[in-house]
């Protein structure tokens, strides 16, 4: 037994059973393992996650998300799965760890390396974090979503690293002839009292466990002892990225996996009937295969350029897709007709009702790195490479598609160039597997940008209605109803919910999973009397999915705009109104922080204004104060193939995320979320016309660009009283979107009723649908700069 608590206060008798069950001894002491291996392999079970803390603040009428939120559910769903994560000490003195999550830009490989470095007393740059392939034994515990990675892995990863450290110290005591108490571990070197020392690398083999595993009790560092956690740290993958060495799926070299693309139908989700000129396309330069598959006609060639030419040349008979003939207007009518009636609220001199009704158009979560996957399908098995946030479900679905058992399908997780929710699905991996099987050859499938924008998943169109009843200086009731096209959660989150739903409080366990996600994430963070929030979803024909922050951006925009209306009704300043009705101390702190740092209430010229909003989710709280310029000189800026319009000129954003593992990474996530919020408010949406989305590239879908981004952005990471981390990846979007909407309404004197505000104006000439991808230009040398 290697139990070595060094702090005398913690030295209490501890006995382990013959077959120890991994568990927390208390908040800081845990049991992990040393596993047999060539070098030291230390392990911990994800069952070690702390139980959800008893809620500190109990409001009068708690909403489900306050007591038990989506992250509690994701963490609890992980709890019963007995499975190990391991930290390996290598002979070169490095530690390595396979993270069972997907790095998509959010910085979890860096924060994970920091957790390991902290407990191991090893520099961060000596920790190698890679992405684990699909591990079916992890059951529900290999899903990257809900900003849950750090929340769910914070304790287990540190326990595994602490087991490694304790074991290295034991081995060093023998080598150096000292007692463990006399040793100091620092920077990967253990030094004895007599000055002799030994490195982790030299101990890696000596400390290795024999066959089987043995339990080790460890004590984690206290927050006061942290020297890595909480220290701003640069990303571990930055050097690779800035030198072009960071590999994404299409950069991975797999022998004979030639470039492959798909020719798609002119209506959304249309399907191929027949190819009229297959032989002609097969004879084109570079082309090796043409194959009709379920989603279109696939082409494999020596280069992607030749794939594009072949896709453009294909003459295909199509069966129209399920939304043929539909447009934004017809879908909105369907959503409107599915709306539940709002309760009849009083409107008398004593009790008045304030309301709002907002439309949120379809939006795209297309990342820079388009949907892509490499598939090498053989008769006896298949290997897949792709950026996947739910690799276990992907493995099961691909196996089903190929008619193989899941253990014949190896699924490798590749670092992805962005996700924004899109990589919860595995559309490209499934398609690549089908194509490779059909062609009998390995393929490197890449979606054209036009397909990624038009056929890739969207944030559903929806409406959000709000009614609030005011009496004097009180808000008596606040009702909010979101109605939208269905959000697809069939990537496996549903399975988690099936596993966890029975234990959910508040009677939400019997709701559908969209309802469950909604109930567990949404709340009105104000003391507004009787609060109700409802969700109705109505149309399952679209390719949808969670987009960064899921329901919250739309729900919070509708709420905060009506909050500004309520403030006006009571003749109160919007900031002071938010303070008055705030019941959460942490929210009050971030609100005050942005008001002060962002100079709330400063004098602004006509046509410019400030807006302020708050948000609470992922165990953290945030507030945003923006300034917007809607004057003609700004909105009238002419930039080719661009949307200019109003410009957010200054953003002050404060977040209390709980324990911030890497404040520099957290700041980066907020900066990104700010640009997302601005895009959602002002510029970016998809337009459905005649059964297809029009947007086919970045000169059609207007995500925030340099000419839109605020020149002045300040993110303040507020010191937190919380001892555990919250989620970072999505936390910047909702408050920013809401603050921009509020600022725009104040600057123009008109409250917008649809988002983005420019949706009615089509700002581009749509590209062709037949052929489905645009021609590659040839004038690049005329445009050098």
């Amino acid at each position, binding site marked *: 037994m290697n139990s070595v608590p060094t702090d005398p206060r913690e030295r209490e008798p501890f006995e382990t059973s013959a077959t120890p069950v991994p568990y927390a001894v208390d908040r800081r002491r845990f049991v992990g393992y040393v596993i047999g291996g060539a070098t030291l392999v230390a392990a911990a079970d994800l069952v070690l996650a702390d139980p959800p803390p008893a809620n500190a603040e109990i409001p009068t009428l708690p909403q489900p998300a306050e007591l038990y939120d989506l992250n509690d559910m994701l963490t609890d769903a992980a709890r019963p799965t007995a499975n190990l994560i391991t930290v390996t000490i290598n002979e070169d003195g490095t530690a390595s760890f396979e993270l069972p999550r997907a790095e998509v830009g959010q910085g979890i490989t860096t924060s994970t390396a920091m957790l390991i470095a902290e407990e191991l007393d090893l520099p961060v740059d000596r920790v190698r974090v890679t992405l684990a392939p699909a591990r079916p034994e992890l059951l529900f515990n290999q899903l990257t979503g809900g900003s849950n990675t750090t929340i769910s892995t914070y304790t287990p990863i540190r326990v595994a690293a602490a087991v490694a450290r304790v074991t290295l110290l034991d081995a060093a005591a023998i080598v150096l002839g000292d007692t463990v108490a006399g040793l100091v571990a620092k920077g990967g070197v253990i030094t004895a009292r007599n000055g002799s020392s030994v490195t982790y690398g030299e101990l890696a083999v000596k400390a290795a466990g024999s066959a089987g595993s043995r339990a080790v009790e460890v004590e984690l560092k206290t927050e006061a002892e942290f020297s890595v956690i909480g220290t701003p740290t640069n990303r571990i993958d930055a050097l690779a990225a800035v030198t072009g060495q960071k590999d994404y799926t299409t950069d991975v070299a797999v022998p004979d996996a030639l470039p492959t693309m798909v020719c798609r139908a002119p209506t959304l989700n249309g399907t191929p009937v027949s190819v009229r000129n297959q032989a002609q396309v097969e004879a084109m330069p570079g082309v090796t295969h043409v194959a009709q598959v379920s989603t279109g006609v696939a082409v494999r060639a020596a280069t992607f350029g030749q794939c594009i030419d072949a896709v453009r040349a294909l003459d295909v008979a199509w069966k129209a897709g399920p939304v043929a003939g539909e447009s934004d207007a017809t879908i909105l009518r369907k959503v409107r007709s599915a709306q539940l009636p709002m309760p009849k609220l009083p409107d008398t001199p004593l009790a008045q009702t304030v309301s709002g009704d907002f439309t949120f158009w379809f939006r795209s979560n297309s990342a820079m790195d388009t949907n892509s996957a490499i598939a090498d399908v053989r008769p006896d098995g298949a290997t897949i490479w792709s950026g996947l946030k739910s690799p276990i479900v992907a493995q099961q679905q691909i196996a089903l598609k190929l008619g193989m058992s899941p253990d014949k399908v190896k699924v490798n997780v590749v670092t992805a160039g962005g*996700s924004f929710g899109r990589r919860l699905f595995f559309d490209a991996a499934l398609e690549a597997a089908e194509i490779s099987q059909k062609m009998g050859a390995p393929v490197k499938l890449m979606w054209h940008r036009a397909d990624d924008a038009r056929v890739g998943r969207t944030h559903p169109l929806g409406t959000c209605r709000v009614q609030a009843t005011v009496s004097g200086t009180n808000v008596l009731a606040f009702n909010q109803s979101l109605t939208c096209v269905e959000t697809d959660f069939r990537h496996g989150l549903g399975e988690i919910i099936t596993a966890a739903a029975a234990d959910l409080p508040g009677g939400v366990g019997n709701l559908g999973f969209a309802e469950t996600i909604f109930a567990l994430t949404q709340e009105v963070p104000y003391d507004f009397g009787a609060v109700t929030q409802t969700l109705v979803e109505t149309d399952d024909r679209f390719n949808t999915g969670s987009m960064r922050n899921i329901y919250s951006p739309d729900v919070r925009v509708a709420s905060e705009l009506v909050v500004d209306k309520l403030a006006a009704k009571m003749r109160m300043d919007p900031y002071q109104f938010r303070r008055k009705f705030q019941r959460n101390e942490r929210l009050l702190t971030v609100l005050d922080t942005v008001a002060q740092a962002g100079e709330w209430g400063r004098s602004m010229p006509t046509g410019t204004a400030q807006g302020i909003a708050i948000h609470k989710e992922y165990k953290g709280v945030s507030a945003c104060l923006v300034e917007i310029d809607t004057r003609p000189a700004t909105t009238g800026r002419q930039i080719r193939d661009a949307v200019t319009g109003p410009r957010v000129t200054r953003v002050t954003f404060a977040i209390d995320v709980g324990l911030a593992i890497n404040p520099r990474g957290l700041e980066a996530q907020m900066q990104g979320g700010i640009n997302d919020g601005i895009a959602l408010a002002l510029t970016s949406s998809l337009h459905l016309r005649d059964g297809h989305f029009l947007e086919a590239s970045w*000169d059609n879908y207007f995500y925030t660009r340099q000419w839109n981004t605020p020149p002045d952005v300040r993110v303040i990471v507020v010191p937190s009283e919380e001892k555990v981390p919250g989620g970072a990846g999505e936390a910047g979007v909702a408050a920013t979107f809401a603050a921009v909407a509020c600022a725009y309404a104040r600057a123009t004197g008109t409250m917008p009723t649809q988002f983005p505000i420019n949706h009615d104006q089509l700002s581009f000439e749509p590209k062709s649908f037949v052929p489905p991808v645009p021609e590659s230009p040839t004038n690049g040398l005329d445009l*050098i700069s």
Partner: protein
Amino acid sequence: MPEQTFIVNGERVTVDVEDDVRLLWVLRDLLGITGPKYGCGINVCKACTSHINGKAFNPCAVPVGSIGSEDEVTTIEGLPGEVTEQQRGANGLHPMQEAWLERDVVQCGYCQPGQIMAAVALVNRVKAEGRQVTSADLDTIRNICRCGTYTRIREAITDGASRM
């Protein structure tokens, strides 16, 4: 098949491929130079931005046959070679790459090689005009970043310009 000869990152290369294949695919699919990324294929997103004879261009929009045998193409992999060894920083990289590292600009990283190549060309152009990079200059950059790293990009370009 025609032979295409040109210079990439200081080395002369010869590739057998049709004239009309765009240079991006010759670099990525045939030469294995994967720093320039595909983001749209129509010279909009600028993720493939590289240099030709020291100026920014987008190989997704250039048929390989229009590249001359003496043309020097530089991708992110060869960027440090555009400055002398003395001008390179702590990591042996171009001053703009060093500024990028120090400011921890990268999130997913996919667009960043193109961002850096565009930034270097912008700074070179502005310096040739005998002036400093302004906020208005930064507003003209067309490279898209879907992670929204624009704030740090702006800081890094200003920082990198002072080192160049």
